């Protein structure tokens, strides 16, 4: 090297040393990324139709710099750990700034109701009119009520903080788990970033719901298992404490996660046996978890089977019918809600398919890498099985009633896939010629995988915020369903209502009253038909319902879209025929509340 070159190199080094550390710049980049997301959401909440490009640019401003730094070789364990935490919390913040005023995701009001009831009754197991099974798994309500009691916050704020902590636990546990299994914190960091490509990572997995808490606990228990295995005989009992505590918490928090934990532990026990692992076989923990989960189901949550049976039998029937051509396959990228179908733009579909393609290539290359390394660790086998299983769940997306089962299972299986793909990613950026180009290819792939996952997991039209609370003449006003819910909370808090899905959820929280919805007592049919059958209203009265909420908005049956302001012109704001409303006046029933699209009828107020 000439003296001029060495001087130039020295100047560059000097400039780099004087500038901010990469971590500090990445933190700043993440903050600016969040600002872009908040800006696009604000435009969307104003009722406009902003380009989603700015929003996705904000997401990428968080993801890409972190992925770039975390994949570098000369990064300390501490910095990688901080990057993983920043990654998890920043992506969680996107959901928080999307819905800053109240819970609008489908399951959130249901669980907020449980937490509010725990505060009112100073106890758990208070029942839930929409999703009774949630009352039998009170882990989330218990944790939220602790924060509510000690801080005086609402269930909304306490829930947002709690799920944030759960998200932090998820990414930290994934990092610890992947580091222990692979022996490389570089691979572990990359695997965590790739896990964000899971279709439920950005939105569904961080809604205020029991699974959003139980999945991180499950991953933390698995990480503790991996640590226990590596810790030697001296630490076996020490690691057993968090494992048992975490397992118990999973069992009382979510049914499916506890069964998933049983399955994982049984699989691990079998793999330990197959590979003749010298470490203690985890079968006692598998038995312990199975006994605990089944015991809890029998004693405290005996309606779990009634809840899960139709879901799984429906999924199996749907797969059968789709395979044998007895029913039409579900169209990909279509989000059907009542009689409205929402479609995804071509480019977004392309990104999602590209994500699946990259993941498949990564899977093949990763498996090859694992095979070449002669990896004999039980966890590596488990992850490879999970990765293969993920592609099986993709086929379920073609069956109309099985796609959700596949989508939910993918959250668990993606843990394995992320690990396997990280092997391939690390191989892609090994030392050698054209490293810069290969690194750029990796970052582009990561960007496609993360965005593609988000598009696959959440409807395109619902990626951005919709108006729930706006200002008019300098004061705040709320959407029709929310105003109704607050009015019910003030005037009729102890009454029971029959309502469409979205309205019923708002009546639960923030309303605080009880509401039934959907197929229960034929409420969906009663609300949608143009004339009434003789038995329908007496059936509602006989089941203790005092009021019926009729809503002309078609989106009222869609719990993810039905709680916002009415914006005319949008296809999702179509109205039902007036006859669906007038039929109640012909009975006649007293009209207690009328806000235009929503009318409340008093089922006992008759001539």
């Amino acid at each position, binding site marked *: 090297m000439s003296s001029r070159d060495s001087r130039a190199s020295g100047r560059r080094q000097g400039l780099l040393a004087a500038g*901010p550390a990469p971590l500090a710049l990445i933190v700043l980049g993440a*903050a600016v990324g969040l600002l872009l997301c908040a800006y696009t959401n604000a435009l969307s909440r104003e009722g406009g139709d902003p380009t989603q490009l700015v929003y996705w640019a904000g997401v990428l401003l968080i993801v890409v710099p972190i992925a770039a730094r975390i994949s570098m070789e000369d990064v300390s364990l501490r910095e990688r750990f901080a990057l993983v935490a920043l990654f998890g919390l920043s992506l969680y913040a996107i959901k928080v700034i999307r819905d800053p005023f109240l819970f609008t995701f489908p399951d959130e009001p249901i669980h907020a109701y449980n937490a509010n009831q725990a*505060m009112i009754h100073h106890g758990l197991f208070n029942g839930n009119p929409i999703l009774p099974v949630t009352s039998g798994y009170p882990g989330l309500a218990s944790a939220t009520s602790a924060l509510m009691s000690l801080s005086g916050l609402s269930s909304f704020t306490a829930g947002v*903080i709690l799920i944030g902590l759960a998200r932090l636990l998820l990414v930290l546990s994934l990092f610890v788990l992947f580091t222990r299994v692979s022996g490389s914190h570089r691979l572990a960091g990359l695997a965590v970033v790739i896990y964000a490509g899971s279709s439920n990572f950005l939105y569904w997995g961080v809604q205020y719901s029991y699974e959003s808490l139980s999945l991180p606990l499950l991953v933390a228990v698995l990480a503790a298992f991996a640590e226990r295995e590596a810790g030697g005989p001296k630490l076996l009992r020490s690691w057993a*404490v968090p494992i048992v505590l975490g397992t118990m918490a999973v069992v009382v928090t979510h049914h499916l996660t506890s069964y998933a934990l049983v399955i994982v532990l049984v699989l691990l026990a079998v793999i330990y046996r197959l590979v003749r692992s010298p470490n203690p076989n985890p079968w006692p923990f598998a038995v312990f978890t199975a006994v605990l989960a089944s015991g809890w189901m029998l004693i405290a949550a005996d309606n779990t089977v009634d809840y899960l049976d139709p879901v799984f039998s429906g999924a199996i029937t749907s797969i059968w019918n789709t395979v044998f051509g007895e029913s039409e396959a579900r169209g990909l990228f279509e989000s059907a809600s009542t009689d409205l179908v929402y479609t995804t733009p071509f480019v977004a579909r392309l990104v999602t398919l590209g994500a699946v393609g990259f993941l498949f290539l990564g899977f093949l290359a990763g498996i090859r890498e694992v095979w070449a390394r002669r990896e004999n660790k039980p966890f590596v086998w488990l992850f490879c099985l999970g990765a293969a299983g993920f592609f099986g769940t993709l086929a379920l997306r073609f069956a109309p009633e099985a796609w959700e089962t596949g989508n939910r299972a993918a959250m668990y299986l993606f843990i394995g896939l992320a690990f396997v793909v990280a092997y391939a990613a690390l191989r892609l950026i090994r030392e050698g010629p054209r490293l810069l180009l290969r690194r750029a290819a990796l970052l582009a792939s990561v960007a496609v995988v993360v965005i593609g996952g988000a598009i696959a997991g959440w409807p395109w039209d619902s990626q951005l915020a919709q108006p729930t609370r706006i200002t008019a003449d300098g004061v705040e006003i709320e959407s029709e369903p929310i105003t109704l819910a607050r009015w019910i909370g003030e005037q009729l808090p102890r009454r029971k209502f029959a309502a469409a899905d979205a309205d019923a959820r708002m009546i639960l929280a923030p309303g605080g009253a009880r509401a039934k919805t959907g197929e229960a007592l034929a409420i969906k049919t009663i609300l949608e038909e143009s004339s009434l059958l003789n038995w329908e209203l007496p059936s509602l009265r006989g089941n203790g319902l005092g009021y019926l909420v009729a809503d002309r908005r078609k989106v009222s049956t869609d719990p993810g879209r039905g709680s916002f302001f009415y914006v005319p012109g949008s296809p999702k704001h179509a109205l039902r025929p007036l006859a669906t409303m007038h039929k109640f006046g012909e009975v006649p029933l007293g009209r207690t509340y009328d*806000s*235009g699209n929503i009318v409340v009828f008093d089922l006992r107020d*008759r001539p």
Partner: protein
Amino acid sequence: MRGHRDLKWVCVAAVVAALVACLVPWEIVRLLAALPLAVFLPGYAIAAAAFGSQRLDPQRLAMLTLLCGLSLLCLGGIVLNYLPGGLRTVTWALLLLLVVFATARAAALRRGKPDGRRSGWKRPRLRGVDVACVVLAAAVAVGTLVFAYTPLPASKAVGYTALWMLPSKDAADPALKVGLISAEQGRRHYRLEARIGENGKPTRYHLALDPDEERVIEVPLNRPAGKKARVVVSLYDSERPHELYRRVTTWTAGSQPGEG
């Protein structure tokens, strides 16, 4: 716990946090106390008790603290559910204090005498330019949150007015409460007509409401007791005075809201 400074500080912090959570009225201050009391302090103490003299690196300690803390919150409510008092501020605070003290004591016993080794934790070296960058990021993040939590105008969103009617329990004579909630985009003028009985003469009210304004009026029922009569309250928007805007109805006798 003599000599185990971390455990001593955990216990002291738990007591202070419990007192703040139970006694201070301001939510934000209580939250700053509630989070460590509910999650971090019990989580740390349980992890310390489980691992005794074994030093954990910061990554594993952070994961275990969160795992144990959140697990305790999930399970604690079930324990309190079956104890006198149930789930209340005081019972939660006492339970968490009990767990912190018991596990900190167990950790001290398992650790034995302090070995005098310094903690493996090294404070990161911070340069001015890094601190400036992080402070700027924090300012942007806080600004983003404030911006996100600020409701904005939405001219395309359709405003509405809600009309409701319920029996009045406060009035000395039988009466109905009729309420109007405006969630319109601007000030609106209304005409309200209340008609009792098919041939009754309508009583008219003229009202003007600003957005987010609510008005409740009492409509007296000047009817002989026992005879059922239909009450119809109609609302007209002054911009379209002949077009019915909202309507609520009831029957005065036997028209008490159901017990559903």
